[in-house]
């Protein structure tokens, strides 16, 4: 027997052919991964129209694929499909490399940086972008940052809490005061003066709480003044001036909420009403006062009578008791001989046997 001529290449070729035939037995559907040309579309981001379109395309594609599969002229084995795919992938990879190089060159020009390799290039540029973004955000923040500014979320939380609480809670101004800030309400914080046209007027504003002037004259005095005013108006010469001046003054003060008493008739009515009210209340007081005195007197009387009754009753009770006792007691026991002896001893001053010269 002679030695086998071992030809490595032949063995490898034979093995390879064997594997190829095995692979060809498996249909390409099962052997090869899904075709990535049809991009994996993110279905959730699509609108209805896009979804409809995609569905239609997949249907068409599948139909076409089925026809191709069953077409004897277009028959391709698994291996051939694999080869085709590899070729396409290579072509794509080459194109990408070229694009990246171009981009890297551009970036390099802008930042005066070198662009060595395609893979690491990409990473660096994105890192750079991120750094630039952070810088920009910091700049914006620094603009807006003012000392003691609270966190935005805290503020919104506080705001919602405040809305839920009742209106009588302390206002922002008071809170700031508590925290030691110099808050003066609506008065602007900085000393910027807003230029206001001289003709502008605003709603009524209360700056200082002043005590109300307690110069309220009595109604009689007001009545006097009102009648005097009426007389002045009746006066022919100056009457009109007085009338017009007074009416304007009265109108202005009434418009601002102050009460003007210039109608003598109304004043008289009001005086009368007040007088009646006072009388009525005086009368009520008097009645009450009298009735109180009367009630007190009555009470005293009843008290005295009760006391008297009690005393009498006690006396009666006592008498009754004594009588009862007396009936119970055997009086003969009182007059025993010993007792008599004791009581009749000479010199005893307790009982009298009678006078010496009394006839026995």
């Amino acid at each position, binding site marked *: 027997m002679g030695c086998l001529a071992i030809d490595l290449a032949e063995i490898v070729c034979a093995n390879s052919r064997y594997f190829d035939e095995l692979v060809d037995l498996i249909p390409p559907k099962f052997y090869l991964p899904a075709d990535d040309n049809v991009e994996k579309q993110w279905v959730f981001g699509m609108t209805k129209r896009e979804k409809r379109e995609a569905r239609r395309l997949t249907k068409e594609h599948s139909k076409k694929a089925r026809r191709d599969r069953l077409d004897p002229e277009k028959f391709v084995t698994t291996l051939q499909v694999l080869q085709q795919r590899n070729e396409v992938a290579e072509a794509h990879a080459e194109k990408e490399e070229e694009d990246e190089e171009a981009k890297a060159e551009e970036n390099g020009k802008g930042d005066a940086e070198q662009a060595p390799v395609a893979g690491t290039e990409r990473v660096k540029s994105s890192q750079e972008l991120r750094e630039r*973004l952070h810088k920009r955000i910091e700049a914006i923040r620094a603009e807006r940052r003012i000392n003691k500014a609270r966190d935005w979320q805290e503020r919104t939380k506080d705001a919602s809490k405040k809305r839920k609480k009742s209106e009588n809670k302390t206002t922002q101004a008071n809170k700031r005061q508590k925290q030691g800030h110099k808050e003066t309400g*609506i008065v602007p*914080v900085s000393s910027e003066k*807003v230029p206001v046209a001289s*003709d502008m007027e605003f709603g*009524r504003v*209360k700056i200082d709480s002043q005590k109300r002037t307690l110069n309220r004259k009595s109604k009689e005095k007001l009545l006097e003044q009102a009648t005097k005013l009426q007389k002045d108006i009746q006066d022919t010469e100056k009457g009109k001036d007085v*009338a017009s001046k007074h009416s304007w003054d009265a109108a202005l003060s009434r418009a*601002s909420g102050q009460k003007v008493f210039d109608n003598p008739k109304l004043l008289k009515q009001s005086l009368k009403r007040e007088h009646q009210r006072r009388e009525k209340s005086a009368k009520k007081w008097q009645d009450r006062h009298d009735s109180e005195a009367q009630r007190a007197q009555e009470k005293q009387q009843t008290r005295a009578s009760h006391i008297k009754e009690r005393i009498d009753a006690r006396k009666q009770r006592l008498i009754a008791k004594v009588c009862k006792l007396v009936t119970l007691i055997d009086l003969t026991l009182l007059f025993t001989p010993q007792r008599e002896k004791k009581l009749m001893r000479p010199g005893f001053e307790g009982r009298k046997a009678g006078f010496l010269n009394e006839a026995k």
Partner: protein
Amino acid sequence: SHETGEKIPRSFVIGRGKLPVLLRNLEQDLRKLMLPHTALHLKESGKNTLKDFVHVAGPLGVSHFVILSNTKNAPYMKVARSPHGPTMTFKVHDFCLAADVARALLRYRAPPSIFKNPPLVVLNGFNPAEAHLKLVTIMFQNIFPVIDVKKVKLSLCQRVLLLNYDKDTKVIDFRHYAISAQPVGVSRGIRKLVQRTKIPDLRTLNDVSEFVTKSGYGSESEAENESSRVTLPQDYGRGNPASQQSAVKLHEIGPRMTLQLVKVEEGLCSGAVMFHEYGIEENKKKNKKKKEEPVDDMDVDMDGEEQHEEEEEDDDADYYRQEVGEEPGEGKRNFTLLRQVPCF
């Protein structure tokens, strides 16, 4: 009010006589304007006279009356103080309802929360040297409650009423706006993020940085108008913290009117006339013959054209006789002076 310790002025907005639908809507708009210190759903019947309202106003603490009435010439608005106060009569040259404003604007914003607090009032052009103008300012300043500068919350001042007086035409512009503030100095995206509750849609962006650095700094109008920028002393709504720069913006809401002050009377729709636009002497007769009655529509068309109140040289009775051919007071309706502006 418990803050200022002063009485809060309350108002009634009523209409006198049969008002057409537009004026009824204007009445409703005026009621909304005067909220919260007014009777929004006040029901008036034809039989109610002014005296009824005055009697009711006392116990309820109502201090002002705003009365709308309609005539052939124009609608009239009276603002008066109850019970003995002065009355100012305005002629309404033009008016525009809140609904019209809403239809005209692209984005009409009038949320009901802004009507929970009374509006601010700003008057411009009223020369205080003239007595009647001074009275107008004082009247409008006192229709709304006093503001305590120390205790008031800035975020509650959400509406403003503007009155502008034009010296030449003697016409008062009446406007009603809602106030809002926007933070300045930030890009539009961030401003909207801070001011709105809506979470922004980042689905089309690849990175958060794009959202932050996107479309520039707001609309064109933000660049100019330095005068509308203020430093807020208090927080004003969402996104406008205190001691920050904010731009104040006005959005028109309510009715618009052009008014002309015609008459000022001493009493509540009664009393001597202190000021009349067209002269007191000429209109003395008219003033004497006023009646306190509700006005009905004049369905008898006497004048073809509109007559101005100034042309009153002749005796009114003669004029009536000329035009109608009857004695005054004998017609179907007892209108003795037709050109008179029916007042009461």
